[in-house]
């Protein structure tokens, strides 16, 4: 490309542009910015009148809304609870899809737990599975750390999870923000439905308190504390080894000449 055809900044390549802010300057001829002494500026009277007119047109806009109370957009929240309808997809609280009988389909595959960006989902299994191989004990969801990214919902292969619009979730105790989503511990719906005896079904299921998540998290934290101590010890040992190795590497080239000198 020849140098003289190079566009300058501003005249960039084949971009259709709308240039130039409108020239109609409604200011008072620079009288107030002080750029030009106001008497010298031609058309200052017209400028002043245009300026005043612009003020009135602005006042017209505001008074227009004052005169029309129908334009009020305020929603008075607790009063409009009845009519307030949030869209279906609104992400406010994670919930389990239980079928009509109250069964869920969670197989404890832990895909959602892995997909969760910040460990807001904690899944624990039962110690002694009664019926099937893997049985869900509690599916804990931490509202306090959830970012509502919806990833868990879309990755779930069985459609167990959904976000619903129950947005009034404020509580006075932070620990209450850890919910146990499953209503019972035990096998998945497919296993339960194969069981003919309703009593056996009931025996396989263990009711779960929605607010028992805090206990699960507390136990997890205790466990992590213990592992963290050992992890830190290992890390520090590795660090010391690294430093020692580096020191040795630094000392190594220095040693031979010394030896030479002695020799």
């Amino acid at each position, binding site marked *: 490309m020849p140098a003289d055809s190079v566009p300058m900044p501003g005249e960039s390549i084949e971009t259709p542009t709308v240039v130039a802010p409108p020239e109609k300057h409604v200011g*008072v001829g620079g*009288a*107030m*910015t*002080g750029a030009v002494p*106001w008497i010298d500026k031609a058309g200052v009277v017209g400028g002043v009148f245009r300026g005043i007119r612009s*003020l009135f047109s*602005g*006042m017209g*806009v*505001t*008074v227009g*809304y*004052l005169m029309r*109370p129908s*334009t*009020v*957009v*305020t929603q*008075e929240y607790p009063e409009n609870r009845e009519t307030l309808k949030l869209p279906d997809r609104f992400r406010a609280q994670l919930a389990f899809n239980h079928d009509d009988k109250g069964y869920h389909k969670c197989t404890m595959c832990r895909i959602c737990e892995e997909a969760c960006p910040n460990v807001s989902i904690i899944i624990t299994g039962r110690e002694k599975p009664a019926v099937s191989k893997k049985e869900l004990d509690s599916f804990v969801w931490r509202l306090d750390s959830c970012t509502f990214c919806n990833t868990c919902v879309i990755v779930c292969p069985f459609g167990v999870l959904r976000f619903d619009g129950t947005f009034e979730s404020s509580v006075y105790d932070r620990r209450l923000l850890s919910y146990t989503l499953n209503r019972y511990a035990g096998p998945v719906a497919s296993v339960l439905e194969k069981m003919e005896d309703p009593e056996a079904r009931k025996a396989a299921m263990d009711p779960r308190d929605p607010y028992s998540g805090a206990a699960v998290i507390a136990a997890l934290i205790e466990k992590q504390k213990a592992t963290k101590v050992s992890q830190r010890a290992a890390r520090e040992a590795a660090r010391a080894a690294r430093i020692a190795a580096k020191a040795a590497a630094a000392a190594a080239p220095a040693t031979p000449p010394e030896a030479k000198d002695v020799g």
Partner: protein
Amino acid sequence: MSWQVKSIAERTGDLLPGSPWTAVLYVLLTILAVTAFVTVAGLVLIYAERKIAAHFQCRVGPMRVGWHGVLQSIADAIKLLMKEDIVPRDADALLHILAPVLSFAGMLLVMIALPMSPTVQVSDMNIGVLYVTAVSGLGVLGILLGGWSSNNKWSLLGAMRAGAQIISYEVSATLALLVVVLFAGTLQLSGIVQSQETGWWIWRAHGCGIVAFAIFLIAGTAEINRTPFDLAEGESELTAGFHTEYSGLRFSFFFLSEFLNMFVLAAMASTLFFGGWMPLHIGHFAGFNGIMDLLPPGLWFTLKTTAMIFLIMWFRWTFPRLRVDQLMRLEWKILLPIGFVNLFVSAACVVTGFYFFAQ
């Protein structure tokens, strides 16, 4: 017909004829009356501002306390009374405490000169206009002291802006007042009202009145630190300007005096240019004047003042703020020359008697 002017002073005299306690009783009654009025008017104004602002902005404003939030101001007052009263550690404590009182006192003192109806006026001085101009200047002292004593750079900036602004605009406001004084031929506020018996000065003075009114309105808005001239507070620039460091009761003093100053401005504007409590009269057209007289003068005053207040609120909720140097240019390069020319023209009108219904 002519209105009988009878102030509280005379009425107190009727109550206890010849007693030496008259003066004491008079002072007590005045304090009670003015304080009660100021409190009620302040609460009403704050509520009105919030509601009007809300509807300008497609909102509903306070709705929860009382019917449509009518008790909101009272709830706010209680809240402000109960708040912690903070004096910053390195502030000049005495001046910090004194500043809101001064500001409030300036506003209260103006209040006693306002003729709200022929019978409701605390003190009808023969130098009324001069008194109002002088005493309302006291408010700026409170603002300056408050900003300076807070030991905060934002407060200081706000106070300096306010000082420069109020003192500058006082000049224009006074020039506009002088126009009416010239036409009325008196400084007494009740006299000015009486002089408008054949029509308001805004239309009787061949445009001089309109120009003077416009200047007075602009300068007055600047004096009471409201948008578009709220540089002293300058919420988006100086956080809160001179009252950044004030809380609780002391803040409410500043707040209340700001709102009551708006009332004072509106009352002065309506007194000087719209006849105060004087009903709408057209010359010596007795039939029309008689119909207009059916409404009591107190109501006329209230209506005019309310309209003025609404206008000032309308400005505030429509316009953005000027910059500090533009503010000064507006005053010294635009308003002041116009004001002077206007004064000369009106003087010529008065000398030649060239205005409507000149006696």
